[in-house]
């Protein structure tokens, strides 16, 4: 249902989500009217879900980012549901992912500094139910983060 023009448009839009319609149309080789109609159709079809602002947590004073790789007690049937519900209650948890592999769940946790992180870890993370094992990985730098799909 996508043609080559849609793909070209999405490619340019992914690389410049903040472009004005006229600029985007120009790059994709379309008239602004055609471009707007195609974008509208892609949004209606659910292919474009949203165009979101990305927050830089460092600018808000959150200097520390830790990935927690968690293995759950799988003997407990409600382990996933209970754990995920508890994770959603912690405001400093910015990402929750579940996996098939050695790791069951990964939480991305942000904190103002190491002291703040330790506080979150002790009071909120360790209190979450059904944890069998936790590994912590500290973020050093983002080398690539545009999350562009190779369309």
């Amino acid at each position, binding site marked *: 249902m996508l043609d080559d023009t849609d793909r070209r448009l999405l490619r340019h*839009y992914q690389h410049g989500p*903040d472009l004005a319609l006229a600029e985007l149309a120009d790059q994709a080789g379309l008239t602004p009217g055609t471009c707007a109609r195609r974008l509208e159709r892609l949004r209606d079809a659910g292919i474009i879900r949203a*165009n979101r*602002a*990305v*927050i*830089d947590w460092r600018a808000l004073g959150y200097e520390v980012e830790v990935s927690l790789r968690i293995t759950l007690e799988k003997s407990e049937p409600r382990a996933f549901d209970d754990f995920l519900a508890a994770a959603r209650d912690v405001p400093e948890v910015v990402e929750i992912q579940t*996996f098939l592999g050695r790791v069951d769940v990964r939480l991305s946790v942000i904190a103002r500094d190491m002291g703040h992180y330790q506080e979150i870890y002790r009071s909120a993370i360790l209190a979450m139910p059904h944890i069998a094992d936790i590994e912590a990985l500290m973020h050093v730098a*983002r080398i690539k983060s545009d999350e562009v799909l190779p369309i």
Partner: protein
Amino acid sequence: MIELDTTDRALLRLLVEDATQTASALGRHLGLSQPATWRRMRRLQDAGVIKSQRLDLDAEALGFGVTVFLGVKLATKGRVSIADFERAVSAIPEVQTVEHILGLYDYRLRVVARDISDFERVLRRRIMMLPGVGDVEANVLLSEERRAGPIG
């Protein structure tokens, strides 16, 4: 560092939902005038709070059925330049994100593929060919939630 009030936090939440809204549309949600909303947006941008915009696409509908996170350890530290590895890995189109981490692995990669056999191709022909690549651990993504974070 910038201090946020309740209205700033509400404005940020709206922009994370949809960054294409106009200042007047946002203002209607927040009970602010268009110029007052615009000034707040400007302040958040100037402080670097809004880093960029990201197009949220339905990867599955576009034919990318599999997302895998790879933990990569560099094998020959010192002999291979980190800069060479980072440049080479960032150039692979299927690699969406590259994070340098400290702990069990050196790098965390987010890789998209059409299906598992396409992922195998990316892993064998691209990732395993990178200069200095050592142990690799793969975890297939089942579900993903991005939370509002401490502005919620």
